[in-house]
C-alpha cells in the first residue's frame, strides 16, 4: 500500500491534504515484525512513535511486583508511543507484535517535531488529533473499568 494511502486511514493525520501527507510520508520508515517480537519495552528511552499498518500489537504493563498485565491490543490505523512526543518520558508499557506479520511505520520524534515546527498547519492538526486519540483511549479504558 502506498504510504499516503495508508496515512489517510490513520486518525492521527485526519485533516491533512495530500501534499501534507506526502511530507509526513517522507519521514516514515516501514518496519515489519513477527509474532512475539518486542517492539519496545516499558522503561526504554523513547525516540520514535509507530503507526500500525497491518496486523496488531499487544500492549503490556509491568507492575512494580513484576507481574505483567496485557491491557489492550492495537490494530490497523492506531498509533503507539505518541505519549513520548508530548511528555518526552520513558516508555509506559511494553509492546509486542501479535500475529503472523505486523507492519508498522515509525517516525523519529526529532523529525516529527521538526516537521511540525516548519509547517505549523500540520503541527496544529496532528497535535489536535493526538489529543483526540488520547481522549478515545481514555474512553476505552473507562469502558473497560466499567464492564469488568
Amino acid at each position, binding site marked *: 500500500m502506498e504510504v499516503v494511502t495508508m496515512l489517510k*486511514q*490513520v*486518525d492521527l493525520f*485526519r*485533516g491533512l491534504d495530500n501534499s501534507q501527507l506526502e511530507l509526513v510520508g517522507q519521514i516514515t520508515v516501514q518496519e515489519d515484525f513477527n509474532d512475539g517480537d518486542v517492539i519496545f519495552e516499558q522503561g526504554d528511552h523513547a525516540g520514535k512513535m509507530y503507526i*500500525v499498518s497491518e496486523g*496488531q500489537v*499487544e*500492549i503490556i504493563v509491568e507492575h512494580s511486583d513484576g507481574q505483567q498485565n*496485557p*491491557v*489492550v*491490543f*492495537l*490494530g*490497523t*490505523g*492506531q498509533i503507539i508511543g505518541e505519549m513520548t512526543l508530548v511528555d518526552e518520558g520513558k516508555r509506559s508499557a511494553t509492546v509486542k507484535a*501479535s500475529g503472523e506479520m505486523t507492519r508498522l511505520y515509525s517516525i523519529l520524534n526529532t523529525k516529527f517535531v521538526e516537521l511540525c515546527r516548519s509547517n505549523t498547519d500540520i503541527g496544529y492538526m496532528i497535535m489536535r488529533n493526538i489529543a*483526540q486519540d488520547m*481522549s*478515545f*483511549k481514555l*474512553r*476505552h479504558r473507562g*469502558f*473497560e473499568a466499567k*464492564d*469488568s
Partner: protein
Amino acid sequence: MIYKVSYIVNDGSKPGSIKNEQERPVIGDTVHIGVHEFRVVDVYEIMPPRDDFLYLHATVEEVAETEAHA
C-alpha cells in the same frame, strides 16, 4: 468511512482492542482480538464523526472454543 472501534470484552476476562474497520460492526459479527475470537453484542457511537472517521464502542463476548470450531 473509516470506523475506529473500541472493543471491550464483556466480562473483562481478556484485553480489548482498538482498531480501524472498513465496515461498521454490527451485533453478531465476529472479531479476532489477539488469538481469541469474540462476538459483537452491542455497538454505539461514542464521539461525533469527524471527516471520514466514525467513532464506535463495541462490547464483545468470547466465542466458546467448541462453537468457534463447529
